[in-house]
């Protein structure tokens, strides 16, 4: 473990990514204590430019709502959606991939065709359809993003499992009569975890982007403010008020960048072939 942190912290991209992510989490968790008001509240006259009033440092939007408050509350939604929908994707994708890879044959064929069925549909289009059918809400959005992002997980896990199940220690476990579930869970999956973790960190970033895109198109949860919603709502007034779109846009950019950097750092730290000290 210490080894992991040392490698992780040695890569500058990992450090920067971690800093951004920790900052975003702190803001999301602690921010609302400094902004007890709802971000939907009209606090000032509309279209106050940024850096002119101390009370609304980042200006106000078309209805006079505080852009900074929106950013902070939006961070909660974006991070929450990113994490939870990734979790959903893992919960679906990992077992499917593991079963397909471990049992092979017809089971593998069936499961992989099923996965490919999802992979052939453009994920964003599918997400739009799902959210539109289920009525936009935070639950339908998480479910939709989770449902469109599990196929890569399943394929990755299947590949890992395929190569691991021919190893001697797995065969030894088979010979000693361990149950299949036990072998997958205790022997194979722990060793297949590193690439999955890297992929998951990137999936959180993708999920945040997906949520923003959905909200941008007006398919966000109408009761929760999110960065994508802010960009979408400000888009039409961009000529009069650039700040309404630019600040949440930058927030999306930074958090997605941060997560990608973390992913890169994780890859360096967890990939034995790249490990500087060898094992």
């Amino acid at each position, binding site marked *: 473990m210490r080894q992991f942190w040392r490698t992780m912290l040695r890569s500058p991209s990992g450090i920067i990514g971690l800093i951004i992510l920790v900052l975003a989490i702190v803001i999301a968790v602690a921010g609302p204590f400094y902004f007890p008001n709802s971000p939907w509240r009209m606090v000032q006259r509309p279209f106050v430019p940024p850096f002119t009033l101390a009370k609304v440092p980042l200006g106000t939007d*078309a*209805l006079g709502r505080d852009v900074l408050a929106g950013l902070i509350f939006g961070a909660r939604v974006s991070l929450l959606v990113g994490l939870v929908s990734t979790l959903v994707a893992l919960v679906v994708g990992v077992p499917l991939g593991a079963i397909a890879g471990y049992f092979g044959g017809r089971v593998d064929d069936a499961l992989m065709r099923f996965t490919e069925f999802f992979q052939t549909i453009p994920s964003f289009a599918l997400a739009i359809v799902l959210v539109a059918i289920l*009525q*936009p809400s935070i639950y339908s959005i998480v479910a939709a993003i989770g449902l469109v992002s599990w196929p890569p997980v399943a394929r990755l896990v299947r590949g890992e499992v395929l190569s691991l199940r021919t190893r001697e220690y797995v065969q030894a476990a088979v010979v000693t009569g361990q149950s299949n579930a036990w072998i997958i869970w205790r022997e194979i999956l722990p060793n297949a975890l590193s690439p999955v973790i890297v992929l998951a960190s990137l999936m959180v970033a993708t999920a945040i982007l997906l949520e923003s895109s959905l909200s941008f198109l007006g398919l966000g*949860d109408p*009761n929760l403010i999110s960065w994508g919603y802010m960009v979408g709502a400000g888009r*039409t*007034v961009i*000529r*009069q008020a650039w700040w309404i779109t630019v600040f949440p846009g930058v927030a999306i950019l930074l958090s997605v960048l941060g997560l990608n950097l973390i992913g890169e750092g994780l890859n360096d730290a967890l990939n034995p072939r790249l490990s500087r000290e060898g094992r």
Partner: protein
Amino acid sequence: MLKRVLLGVVVGCGLSAAQAEEPKTGGVVNAVIQPEPPGLMLAMVQNGPTQMVSGNIFEGLLRYSPKLEPLPGLAESWTISPDAKVYTFKLKKGVTWHDGKPFTSADVLFSIEMLKQTHARARNNLVMVEKVEAPDDLTVVFTLKEPFGPFIGIFEVGSMPMVPKHLYEGTDYKTNPNNNAPVGTGPFMFKEWQKGSFIRMVKNPNYHEKGKPYLDEVYWQIIPDAAARAVAFETGKVDVLPGGSIENFDVPRVSKLPGACVTGAGWEFFSPLSWMWLNNRNPILANKKVRQAIMYAIDRDFAKDVIWNGLGKVATGPSASTIKFYSDDVPKYPYDPAKAKALLKEAGYKGEKIRMLPLAYGETWQRWGEAVKQNLQDVGMTIETIATDVPGGNQKIMEWDYDIAFTYLYQYGDPALGVSRNYITSAIAKGQLFNNVEGYSNPEVDKLFAEGATAPTDAKRKEAYDKVQKILAEDVPVAWLLELQFPTITKCKVKSLITTGIGVNDGFRDAWLDK
């Protein structure tokens, strides 16, 4: 700030129009039409854009001033019998259709018969008519079953367009080839329609008003994107942006462009009034105090100034102030959150969840929904916004599956034509988007509206409508928001475009271009 600038522009335009200038002849005007109309045969297609284009090709018997007084149209004079049952119209002499055939009373009789089949609103407007006769070529006499006050208000071009008998009689109306190249008596003749691009109409050289129209041609440009329409105006590709062509927030910017004039006039006949349906069937909203609390809780001045950029007017009750028999003598609901909270407490409201359905008509309505939600939450109500598209929202309203829902409706100049339908018990029916959707029922209101529609004199009608407005404003069956104004933006060089209560819809008759 924005408001003041806008006001300045409006006043400025008013002044320049007031200085009677000599109209100049000639020139071409480009106007935006949004969205592209599904057809131009006004007797069969009733969409807003159809009315706007075809109102300049067809004509009705009467036109209406911004105060909704009848003006001569194809009828040059009219008399009403003392018992208010016989309406006699004298038609103008020497009027011809665009193909040269004369317009006579036979066309009027035919039009009425045709409209009864093809035009739902005209059919309803005509139910009180016992018979229509044409004693001679230039006289038409309507005899009513009983006095019907609003009758004089149903002859507007969109409500009762005159159709050429010689082209439609005995044909299948739906497949008549003239539907694609409509022939009317109006100041402009249909010339060509490049689908998705423009509709072109040219001056009618034989128009019955001597010297009119002044313009040679009018192009209705079809531009599907709101931002592109604004740009087209900026670059000078179009000269006229009718109400609703561009998003509200763009109105102040575009109005301030050099050479741009803006006016809210020209919608008096329609007088769109916005409100929120409050589902009176919901046990919480069934309580009058809760409904009144909602009225006090909503900051309607904010909505007017910020969301509608200062255009429009805070509604006082069921009637818009621009239609007949409007009464100001009703209980008022200024923005007063404290009072709203007190009323909610009295009503015993404990934060039960109320669902709100915004209107999915674009940015403005979305923002309005957000603002109202915040207003209501500020006084302690729990509001959940339901996200939906236009058909989905309509479906929910038609099935009464909502608690609060935004809407706006036209009023057609008279309470009997556009107001009573939203409050009388007989207008409650599942599956309709308009009329009494909220489920409010009050026998006294029913009685007063019936009285108002059929009372023989205007004084008697006023009496009934004054009373009913007071009762409704007290009861708050729905939460009235704003009298909407859809600003028309033009290049200032386009003069006298809006002179009547239907604005651009029959405006090009008098319009001229200052070169």
